[in-house]
């Protein structure tokens, strides 16, 4: 009989194998980061997870989040100015906030917004390779309390793999590759937003459903999400083709 522990172990293993795949195979940064935040929610029991990358202009951009729920996205948006995420990227070290309510003075903007959305604790894990901190993984919890040490290790390991995946081996030495990769990822994210808009309007979906449709189509064709997005936006693929293929039986589920 399988214990919950060993079931989790199997999931964990699957996640690492999947993330490691991105290092050797053709992969899409945006898709990989979405898988990463998905694992954080399913494996680490986080209520919500999000990932921000440095835009190299002194700001941060939300690249992936476990939900497209507007209120959550707004919370990430707030973090661009103030909060554990920004501190984490500044220091290149994890920032653990087991009790958000106790930190109002530290982050007067961020804490009330996070609390009002039902979050009680947050952990920020840097995406760092040597001296380069390119972003942070953000894990939100509904209950007060520090993340288990073991879970934190898992989150750091996943973040590390994702970081190496983004920077790739050449980037470790060459600053220009880092810039090329990051700027491409940021622009791909914009193309995906445009494609979400196309699918949302054509298929009467919300933005989250539109994104799921895009990913499902990409997976079925073994194509990169950002490439599919570009083809949708430029009319190479019709919205109908994507929507038909990804339509779940019944209506409106994701």
């Amino acid at each position, binding site marked *: 009989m399988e214990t919950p522990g060993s079931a989790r172990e199997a999931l964990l293993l699957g996640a690492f194998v999947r993330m490691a795949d991105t290092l050797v195979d053709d992969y899409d940064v945006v898709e990989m980061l979405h898988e990463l935040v998905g694992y954080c929610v399913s494996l680490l029991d986080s209520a919500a997870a999000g990932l921000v990358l440095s*835009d*190299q*202009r*002194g*700001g*941060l*951009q939300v690249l992936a989040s476990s939900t497209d729920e507007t209120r959550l*996205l707004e919370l990430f948006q707030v973090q*661009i*100015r*103030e909060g554990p995420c*920004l501190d984490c990227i*500044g220091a290149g070290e994890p920032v653990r906030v087991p009790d958000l309510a106790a930190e109002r003075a530290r982050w007067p*903007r961020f804490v009330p917004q996070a609390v009002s959305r039902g979050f009680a604790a947050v952990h920020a894990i840097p995406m760092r390779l040597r001296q380069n901190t390119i972003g942070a993984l953000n894990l939100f919890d509904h209950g007060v309390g520090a993340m288990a040490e073991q879970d934190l290790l898992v989150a750091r390991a996943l973040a590390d793999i994702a970081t190496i995946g983004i920077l790739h081996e050449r980037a470790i030495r060459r*600053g*220009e590759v880092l*810039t*090329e*990769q990051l*700027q*491409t990822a940021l*622009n791909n994210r*914009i*193309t*995906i*937003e*445009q*494609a*979400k*808009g*196309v*699918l*949302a*309007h*054509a298929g009467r979906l919300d*933005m989250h459903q539109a994104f799921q449709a895009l990913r499902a189509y990409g997976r079925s064709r073994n194509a990169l999400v950002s490439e599919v*997005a*570009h083809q949708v*936006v*430029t*009319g190479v693929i019709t*919205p109908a083709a994507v929507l038909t293929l990804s339509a779940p039986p019944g209506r409106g589920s994701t």
Partner: protein
Amino acid sequence: MSRAWSTGALVVAEAGDDEADRVRHRVVGDLRGGGSELDALAKVCDACVELLPVDGASVSVMTGDLGRECLYATDRVAARIEAVQFSLGEGPCFQAFDTKRPALAPNLRDVAWPVFAAEIGAEPVGALFGFPLVAGAISIGALDLYRRTPGWLSAAQLRVALRLVDVATLVLLGLGLDRAAGAWTDLPLRRAQVHQAVGMLIAEFGVSPEHALARLRGHAFTTGRLVDEVADDLVSRRLHPADVGGA
């Protein structure tokens, strides 16, 4: 630092940031005062040379393989770099435009454009940095920087460069008029809703992303609102795409 929250002061700020911001404000101010877009792009290029350790800058617009034009170059060498690229069909500006990613060559000796490198060899060009002017699937051109000696830009310099590239992108996309003030993170390019709204208009009218953006901008202009606001209304379905008429 975060005191000016409502006006969106960046928590992390460096000297170059202020200068890049000043350039943007000046450019936006000029456009509002009836200045031409060409003048605005010239100011951005001049600012690149002034604020960065580069010797020349240029902006070119491209539409696919055929339509390409250098709109401004700060000096003869920068103009020559563009001319050589256009005649050969290769180089940093082409690559940046084609791949929608920066094409950065801190040492021209190591680059992947052998014909271009040979042709430009007679000119004093050591490093070339090509930045695409893009917004998702919308690709309009490139901004090229050159320096006489090989060498990479520091992280702080790169930051200034990317901010100036953003200004050029905003000017060419016609989004520069939206806000006289506001922090970098508030630029329309940063707002997911703007891009989602462009997508909705593509689906409604079956037009190109460039055309969809033009409609969005046109609607904002004629109704006296910000592109952000119109986009918000579209995405939250308070406004139907069919009601966003021709530009």
